[in-house]
Every structure is written in structure tokens, then in C-alpha cells.
């Protein structure tokens, strides 16, 4: 059992939790994830590590309330316990030697992008952060990003906050001014990452994407998280849990990944409704 030591709401659908898990905290690095199970009857779900405190022995997660499981998780309060919490899983994001990096985060993906931005900042790298949201109410972690970024852009789709437009707009603008980076790291919805990769591609700057497919065990056993890389015309199957979650964005078959991510959409809608009838009509 793992204790929830802190919980706060970042926006109406995104929650922050700090969990006591000393063994995970000891090893956690940016880019890695954990697998948790809220209670005996819940699914195992992967969540990327948003922060960790090796001294306190805690690991922070930030999650969007999207389905039955995240809803159950959100119903837990400070001082209560989660049944299972295992990790850190996946390979850490490779940051060594990077001096000038652009981090592009979208929606709740910003929670994953933040520890990377922070670590790069601590390493003395110049960090340009672009974070994007649908609308003002969904903005999270703005101050935290500002603190560790040399250049900072915030975008909303509807223009209710920051600059109106998507995250590719400032990227394209910088590229047109011949600004360059050692690497662009992007984390967010698949469709956003696909477009970021397309925007970066003409510059030839390495572009890393963080994939978050459906997983069950997370330890390299089930193969549910498989995705396809296209390298020199050849299709290669990789497993996000042990080979990733970071991949070379130029190689990912995004269309396939997007299709696979919808495998249980109908099931999830049904479960979500079962869990909370109050939410009907909101989504």
C-alpha cells in the first residue's frame, strides 16, 4: 500500500498527487513512468513521473481524469492509500550533453515535460518551453515552466490565454528566424506530436517524442504497448515499456499509434458513465 501524502487540483480535470514510494523515488529519472493500481479490482495504468523527492521518498504524478480508473484515483484523498505502485519503468530521457533544447508540451503532457525542462535547466542548458492547451481553464504548471525556461511561450487553441494558436506556431516562427536547437523534445497528444515532428523535420534537428500507449504490465511481458518505427523503409516493432517511452520522432508511425490508442474507446466511454452518472453531459 502506498500513501498519498499530498493532493491538489491543477484544473477541473487534472490532479496532482504525491505518493510515498521510497524505492521508486530513489531511482526515478525524468521520462520514466510508474504503473499503478488504485484498488484490488482496478486496471493497471501507466503514468509518467512528474517529479520525485529522493529525500522524502515520494514520487509525484499528474493525471487527467479520463476513464473509470483515473476517476477512482481522483476519489482518493490525502492520507489514503493506493494498492499498487511500481517503477520506475522505461528508459530515462537522454539529456546528457544537451546545451540548447526546445521542450514542446501539450495538455497534460506538460506534466511529463516539466521534469525534463527542470533537469535540463539544472544542468545549465538553455531551455525554450512551448506549452499549449485547449483553453484557459485547462492551463497547468505555467509558473513552474517559467522558472526553468529561458524562453517561454504559452498557447491556447481558442486564444483565451497566452497567444492564440497551436504549439507549432512559435516553433515555425523560430525556425524562420534560423534559430536552432540541439534537440526538440515533445510530449502531448499524438496528433500534436505528429505535427511538431513535421514542423521540426525540415530543420534536421533531432526530435524526441514520448509515447504513452495502452499498457498492462509495463515490464515487457504483454506486448500491448507495441508501436512501429519506420527506419530506412523497414517497419520495426518496438515496445514502449522497455524500449521507450522516448523514441526518435522521425521514425514513429503516428497514424498507427493513433488508431491503436482508440482500441477501447467505446468500452472506456461506457465504463466512465458507469462510474459517474454526474459527468454525463459534461463530456
Amino acid at each position, binding site marked *: 500500500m502506498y500513501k498519498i501524502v499530498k493532493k491538489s487540483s491543477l484544473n477541473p480535470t487534472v490532479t496532482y498527487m504525491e505518493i510515498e514510494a521510497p524505492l521508486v523515488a530513489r531511482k526515478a529519472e525524468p521520462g520514466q513512468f510508474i504503473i499503478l493500481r488504485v484498488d484490488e479490482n482496478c486496471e493497471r495504468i501507466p503514468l509518467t513521473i512528474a517529479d520525485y523527492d529522493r529525500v522524502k521518498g515520494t514520487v509525484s504524478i499528474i493525471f487527467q481524469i479520463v476513464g473509470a480508473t483515473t476517476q477512482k484515483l481522483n476519489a482518493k484523498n490525502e492520507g489514503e492509500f493506493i494498492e499498487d505502485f511500481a517503477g520506475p519503468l522505461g528508459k530515462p530521457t537522454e539529456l546528457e550533453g544537451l546545451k540548447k533544447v526546445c521542450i514542446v508540451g501539450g495538455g497534460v503532457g506538460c506534466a511529463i515535460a516539466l521534469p525534463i525542462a527542470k533537469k535540463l535547466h539544472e544542468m545549465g542548458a538553455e531551455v525554450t518551453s512551448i506549452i499549449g492547451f485547449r483553453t484557459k481553464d485547462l492551463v497547468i504548471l505555467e509558473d513552474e515552466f517559467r522558472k526553468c525556461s529561458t524562453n517561454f511561450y504559452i498557447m491556447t487553441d481558442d486564444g483565451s490565454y497566452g497567444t492564440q494558436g497551436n504549439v507549432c506556431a512559435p516553433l515555425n516562427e523560430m525556425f524562420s528566424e534560423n534559430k536552432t536547437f540541439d534537440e526538440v523534445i515533445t510530449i502531448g497528444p499524438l496528433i500534436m506530436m505528429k505535427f511538431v515532428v513535421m514542423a521540426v523535420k525540415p530543420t534536421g534537428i533531432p526530435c524526441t517524442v514520448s509515447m504513452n500507449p495502452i499498457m498492462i*504490465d509495463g515490464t515487457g511481458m504483454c506486448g500491448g504497448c507495441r508501436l512501429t518505427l519506420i527506419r530506412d523503409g523497414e517497419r520495426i516493432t518496438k515496445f514502449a515499456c522497455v524500449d521507450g517511452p522516448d523514441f526518435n520522432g522521425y521514425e514513429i508511425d503516428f497514424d498507427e499509434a493513433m488508431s491503436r490508442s482508440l482500441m477501447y474507446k467505446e468500452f472506456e466511454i461506457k465504463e466512465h458513465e458507469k462510474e459517474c452518472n454526474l459527468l454525463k453531459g459534461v463530456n
Partner: protein
Amino acid sequence: MANFNMQPNKNEMPMQDPIARGKNFSEVALGYTEEQAINEANRCINCKNPQCVQGCPVAVNIPAFINEIKNNNIDGAYAIIANTSNLPAICGRVCPQETQCEAKCLRGIKGEPVAIGRLERYVADNAKVKSSEIKEKNGHKVAVVGSGPAGLTCAGDLIKLGYDVTVYEAFHTEGGVLVYGIPEFRLPKKIVKEEVDKLKEMGVEFVHNVIIGKTLTIDELFEMGFEAVFVGSGAGLPNFMGIPGESYKGVYSANEFLTRSNLMKAYREDATTPIMKGGKVAVVGGGNVAMDAARTALRLGAEKVTIIYRRSMEELPARKEEVENAIEEGIEFKLLCNPVKIDAYFNENDKRDPKNGFVKSITAIKMELGEPDENGRRRPVPVPNSEFETEVNTVIIAIGTSPNPLIKDTTSGLDVNRRGGIIVTEEGATTKEGVYAGGDAVTGASTVISAMGAGKTAAKAIDEYISKKA
């Protein structure tokens, strides 16, 4: 002297009706009654030089325990089995006896062999006293990685020898493949739990949610004071065929399909883990895992389940009893066929059609058996222009696994072979001092009993290693 029962055939195993059982997850085989067990035991002619024992990877003293059944001394029979096997209720259910103990039984020459597996299960299920002798604590600590059959066996043997044993499990529950892989109808979870609980009573400590190679490394286990480590981390990543369409929605690895159903209980109405149910299902492969996946799909409500296997019935590697059960339950076998592609539904006029990207058919090519390969098995070769398409909604790929890289990648000095399996000596010692390994992590996908055999061998080697050092 005893009157042997010379009836040529085994006492039949009482089973759930094939039609009824195709719709539930309760155990298929119900177990012998006392009368059947004693009658079957009397078929054993107590050979002077019992071949059956040699056929058993953990060398259970088979004639001796059968003799106790003849006297209706079930606790006595249990004590004999428990001398060498820590998991009799499991072995009695899932061992491929027909290629091991029973293959060597003299009664099998003129008729059927003694039903050793069924008798073992009878003893395990009916014994009242199940205690084992435990030596005094010797103060030495051993870590076991993984709580599948190899790890449980190794832990059981070491605790009996007086060691302090801690088992690290990556998942939220113990049992490894026994709980995520083998379905309820073949091995009830309750049985696994009882065997694990027995080990807990004996003093084995289990730690969940620790992934060795990630949460802790092997080197850290030594720093923590363990003097030896046994790696029984099991089979790893599922293999795929490398044919077009394997990433469409509705294509599963058997590991994923079975894990969703077994470990995550997707077969229950109240489960929150989704799984595709119903429709037409194709399972690719011919091993036990393929049979388990096919029969699970049937129980989840599939209209039709077809097994596609590239060799013939004779070469099917699955346990014979499970193949027979599958046939009885109405699973169709398309033998001498090999899939070449999987197609999905696409609505040209509506890119947002929710059915887009879901499997609609599998195309296979007919095969014929050619020259024997290096293992003596006749190699299947495709028959030109014999492709045919079958309409399906779900495809489950059960063609084996490749070892998990997590431990290898984080343990210096631990060598693996070119397929990724950990290299070990006959005693189970790896190339790293104090580290032993066994089961699928070494061999790639194999059987429960061979993993148990490896766990046993390694426990002995670990005992010798630590005794010598001390």
C-alpha cells in the same frame, strides 16, 4: 502380494460437459474420487526399476506415493511428493505427463500408462496434513527474482534448507505465469494461492511491485546482504510474425490476451480491464499458450475459434489432454497453414468510422511438410498460390516469446546467448558469481515443470555455493 489392476486403460477423468464448460471459467477436469484413485493406483505394478521417476524433471518418487494411495494414506502420499516437489497441486494439473513420467511407464507399452498426473492432483487436493520438514535457520539470505514456477520451487527448497528467502515480484500478486498465463479453467487461482500461502507459512517473504533491473538491481541485492540471487524472471516480450497488419486493432499477443483475462480478470462482468469478446477469433500457434488463448476466447463468448498452426496434428507441441479438450469444446484446427497477412476494415467514405482499423480477416497459405530440420521435426514449406482468406475479428498470436531485457541490461557480468536467454551451467550458475537462473528466462518459453526442475537444481547449487563459502 498385492493384486494389481490389469485394466488396460486409465480411469477416466471426470470432466465438466464440453458444451457447458465452453461458457464458464470453472475448472474443466474435476478430479478423481477416492474409488477412482485407488483403482487407478492399483494399476501401478511397482516396477523394481521405476522408469517414471527418471521421466520426472524433479524426480518425484512416483511408485512410493502411488503405493500410499493404494493404502488410502493420502497424507503419507503427500509427504513423499513434497520431498521433491513444492507445488504438487499445480504439477498434477499442468505437467505434460505424456512426454515425461507417463511416457516411461511400463503399463503404457500394452495400453495406457498409469495416470500419474491425475493421481498426483488427487493427493494434493485431498491431503489433510501438508507440512514439510524445515531445517534450523542457518542465517544466510537468498533473494529470488520472480514468483513463477521456477522462483517458487527454488524458494521452497531453500527455505526448507534453513535459508532466509525473499522473493521479489514485479506484479501485484504472486504466481507469475501460473496467474497471468494459465487460465482459471485449467489451473484455478485458488490452487496457486494455496501453494504460495504454504510457502509464506514456511517463512518465505514475498515483496510485490519490485522490478529487478529497474526498482532494484542485482548488484543492489548483494549490497543489501543477500549472498546469492536466483533469477526466475520468466519469458519476456511476445514474438510477432512480422507480417503486414499485426498492429491493427484486434490483434493481440497471447500474453496480452491472457493477462487481460486472467491477471486482470477481464472475464468477469465487473472487471474494469477491457478485452475484445465475441465474434470470430483466430489463434496462431500450436503450444499450450495457443490452446489456453483459444479456449479463453471461446469462454469469453466467441462464435467461432480457429487455431492456425503451420505443422500437422502430430507436431502440435501442446499437452495432449488440452488439445483433446479444445477439440471437444468445438475449437477448429486449421493445420498446415501459415498466416501471411492480416487485413482491417476501412471505410473510404468516412475516416471517422469507429470500425476503421479493426481486424476483418486473416490470410494464410497452405503448407506441406518437407525435409526434417536440425531438431528432426519436418520443416513446413509453403504450397505456392494456396493463400486463402478467413473472416475474423480478433487475432491472437501465440508463437513464443523472447527473454526480457531488463535484468541483462542492468547487470554487469551476466552473459546471455544470442536469443537473449541467460547462459547457465548444468547447475544453474550464470556467468556472474552468486547469481543463478532458471526457467523461461534461460530457455525461452517452456513448461512449468521444466522451470520447476531448474529452480530445484539451482536451489541445490546455491546451497552448495553458500555452504562452501561459509
